[in-house]
C-alpha cells in the first residue's frame, strides 16, 4: 500500500471549485494588494486564536522578523530559542542583526523551561519558544521567567495553529504570535504566507505599518521597513480553507490517536501524546525511534514515506559556525536528531493507511534482532 508523506492534491480536490471561485472574485475586484479578503481573514484568524488582532504577512519567517523589528530588537541584542526547529526560527533573529542563543529541548521536542534562566545575559531581549510539531511549549514557566526578567516573548507558532495550552491558544501568550501559512502547514495557502497575532494595540499598529513599507497611508512613511503582505489571493483561498480547519484538525488528532493505540507497547519507540496541559494539533507526528535510519529505509521499501524534522540541529549548521557551539552543546536535541521520524498524519489519510504504517513499524521491530545487527527484511516478509 502506498502512503505518501504529503498529499496536497487530495486536500484540494474537494474544494477546488470553491478555491477558483474565490480567486476569480479577487480578480473581479482587482484589489490584489491588501484587499478586503485580507481584512476578513485577519478578523477571523484573530477570533479563532482568541486574540484581539491579527496581521497577514508574506511568510512565517517574515512574521518572526517583523515582530523582532517591531520590538526594536537588532544588532547587539540576543534572543533565546531552540536548536531543534526549522532554520527560520534562528534565521529570523540573524536577519535582524541580533544573535540567536540556543537552549536545549526536552522530551516533547520543545524548549526546556528549566534551562532558560542560565542562558539569559544582559543582552537578552526576548525568548522565542517554538511550538514544534503542533504542540504547545510549557508556557507558564516561560511567561514567568520572561516577566521576572523583563523579556519579550515571541511565540513561533508556525506549526501550531489552534494548539492549546491549558485551554488557551498559542499565539495569545507572548507579545506576538507568528504563524506560517506555507502550503505544508495545517492551515495552508497555495504559496508563502504568514500571520501575526497580538493583543497589544500599539504593536498591532506597528505590524500594519511595518508589513507595508512603513506607510501610514498612500504617501506618508513613518518608519523604514520592508514589504511583507499576505496576498489578497491567498487570503481569499485561506478563507475557504478556514471553514474546514476544525474538521481537518480533528482528523489529525484522531489519526494521532489511532497511531498511539496501534503503536502502543513497542519498547523501541516513543510515540507523542498530549501532556495534560495541552491540546496538540499534530502538524507533524514525530516518533522517536531506535534504529531510526533503518526503520526509515524499511518503511520506504514498504512504500511508506516519512520525513525527519530536522536531521541537523541548527547549532551544527554551517550558518551557525560563528555562534561558537559544537557537538555536545545540546545533548537532548542532538540525541533526538538521530531518533526522530515524522509519520504521515494529514487529514486525508485513511484508517487502512494508518493501520498499514503501524503494522510495518511493528513488524520492523519484531523482526529486527536485538543485538544491534541490521535485520534483513523484504517486502514479502511483512505481507
Amino acid at each position, binding site marked *: 500500500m502506498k502512503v505518501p508523506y504529503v498529499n496536497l492534491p487530495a486536500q484540494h480536490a474537494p474544494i477546488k471549485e470553491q478555491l477558483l471561485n474565490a480567486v476569480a472574485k479577487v480578480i473581479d475586484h482587482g484589489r490584489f494588494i491588501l484587499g478586503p479578503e485580507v481584512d476578513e481573514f485577519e478578523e477571523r484568524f484573530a477570533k479563532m486564536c482568541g486574540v484581539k488582532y491579527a496581521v497577514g504577512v508574506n*511568510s512565517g519567517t517574515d512574521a518572526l522578523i517583523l515582530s523582532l523589528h517591531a520590538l526594536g530588537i537588532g544588532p547587539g541584542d540576543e534572543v533565546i530559542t531552540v536548536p531543534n526547529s526549522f532554520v527560520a526560527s534562528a534565521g529570523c533573529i540573524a536577519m535582524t542583526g541580533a544573535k540567536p542563543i540556543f537552549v536545549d529541548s526536552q522530551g516533547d521536542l520543545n524548549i526546556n523551561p528549566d534551562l532558560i534562566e542560565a542562558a539569559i545575559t544582559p543582552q537578552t531581549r526576548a525568548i522565542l519558544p517554538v511550538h514544534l510539531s503542533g504542540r504547545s511549549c510549557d508556557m507558564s514557566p516561560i511567561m514567568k521567567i520572561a516577566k521576572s526578567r523583563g523579556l519579550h516573548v515571541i511565540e513561533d507558532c508556525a506549526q501550531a495553529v489552534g494548539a492549546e495550552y491549558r485551554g488557551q491558544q498559542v499565539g495569545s501568550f507572548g507579545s506576538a504570535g507568528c504563524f506560517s501559512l506555507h502550503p505544508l502547514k495545517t492551515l495552508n495557502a497555495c504559496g508563502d504566507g504568514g500571520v501575526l497575532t497580538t493583543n497589544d494595540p500599539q504593536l498591532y499598529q506597528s505590524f500594519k505599518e511595518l508589513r507595508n513599507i512603513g506607510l501610514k497611508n498612500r504617501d506618508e512613511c513613518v518608519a523604514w521597513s520592508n514589504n511583507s503582505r499576505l496576498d489578497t489571493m491567498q487570503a481569499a483561498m485561506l478563507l475557504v480553507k478556514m471553514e474546514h480547519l476544525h474538521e481537518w484538525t480533528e482528523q489529525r488528532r484522531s489519526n494521532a490517536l489511532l497511531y498511539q493505540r496501534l503503536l502502543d507497547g513497542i519498547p523501541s519507540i516513543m510515540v507523542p501524546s498530549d501532556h495534560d496541559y495541552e491540546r496538540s494539533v499534530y502538524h507533524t507526528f514525530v516518533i522517536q525511534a531506535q534504529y531510526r535510519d533503518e526503520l526509515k529505509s524499511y518503511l520506504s521499501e514498504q512504500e511508506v514515506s516519512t520525513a525527519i524534522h530536522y536531521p541537523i540541529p541548527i547549532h551544527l549548521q554551517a550558518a551557525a559556525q560563528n555562534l561558537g557551539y559544537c557537538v555536545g552543546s545540546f545533548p537532548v536535541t542532538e540525541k533526538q536528531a538521530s531518533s526522530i521520524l515524522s509519520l504521515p498524519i494529514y487529514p486525508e489519510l485513511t484508517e487502512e493507511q494508518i493501520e498499514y504504517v503501524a503494522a510495518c513499524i511493528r513488524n520492523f521491530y519484531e523482526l529486527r534482532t536485538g543485538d544491534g545487527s541490521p535485520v534483513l527484511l523484504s517486502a514479502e516478509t511483512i505481507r
Partner: protein
Amino acid sequence: MEVPYSYLPRQFANLDPFLEDVRELAASGDFTLGKPVGEFEERFANLCGLPYAVGVGSGTDALILSLKMVGVGPGDEVITSPNTFVATVGAIAMTGATPVFVDNGDDYTIDASKIEAAITSKTKALLPVHLSGHPANMPAIMEIADRRGIKVVEDAAQAILASIDGQHVGSWGETACFSLHPLKNLNVWGDGGVIVTRSAEMNEKLRLFRNHGLGTRDEVLMWGHNSRLDSLQAVIANRLIDQTESITQTRIDNAAFYDNAFSDLGEYVVIPPRRSNIKQVYHTYVIRVSDRDSLHHHLMDKGIRAKVHYPIPLHLQEAARPLGYHEGDFPVCEEHCRTIISLPVHEHLTQEELDYTAGTLREFYTG
C-alpha cells in the same frame, strides 16, 4: 467619461485561460519554488538579455536581498535619490545601512554629476532608480562606481525593458531589481519580484539567501530570508511575459501621443527631456505642470484618475527624521514634488480616453 488609472479589470476580462493554468497548478500541489518559477526565471532572464534571474517575494525584497548580498550592512552608506517609492530607502535601512540622498535631474532620475560629492569612506553601494521607466544615467554612474570601487544595484522596479543605446537596464549593476506588483508593466496577482544578474556566483548566493540559506532540504549554509516568488504568481507571469514587448510599445505610443498633444502648452506643461538614445518604458507618464493641485482636482472631477508619484520626497518623510535632512536640501526633487502629475498611460486606454484626457488638461489651462 471615467478614465481609470488601474487597468486590471480590462487586463483580466477573459479569465479562463489563467484559471486553467491555476487549476493545473493546484492539481500538482507544486506551490513553492516549483516548475513555473524556474520557467519564469529563464524567460525573464532572456527578456533582459542576461544569464540569470531569481524570483523573489517582491521588488522590495529584491532590493534587500541584493544589497545584503553585495555586502551592505550596518555602518555602511548607500546613495540613492529622494524622489522614489519609499521601498528603495526602506530596503537600504533594512540592511542596517544609512541611506544618503543625492538630488535628481530633470528626467526624475539621480543627477550623476552630484554623486561624487556624496561619497564618503563608508559608501558601499549606489542604488540608482530608473524612475517612471526612465533609465538613470548608467554610463556616468558606472564610471564613478568603478573608479571609486563602489558596487551598484539598479532599482529597476518600474523599468522592465528600458534601455540606453540598446543596452537594457539590469545589465550595468551587480544586480537589478524588478517588481511584478499588480500595477507594473509585467504584473502578477499579488506581490512578486525578480532579480537579474550577470554573475553566476551572485545567482547562487541569491538563490540560497531567498530560501533560508538552505543548500539542500536539511543543510543551512548561511542565515537567510524567506522570499520566494510564489509558483502561483509565476504561472500568471508566464502567461503575460510574452506580452511585455507589446505592452511597452503601447505605453510608448500613448506617451508620444500626450507629448505631441501638449507640445504647444509649454507655458503650463514641462515635458521631461526625450533623448533619442533612451528607451523609456513609461511605467508612469509624469509631466510637470503649473497649478498642479488644481489641475489634479479638475482631472479627478472629470473622471480622470491622475496620480502623483510621489508627493512627499523621501528625505522629508517622518521615517527619515533621524537622517537629519531638511526642506531645501534637494531643491530639484522638492520642486518636482510640487509640480509633477502622472496621467493614465497604460496599455488598455482607448484613443477616446487619451483624447479626453489630453483635451481635459488643455481645457483646464486654455479654457
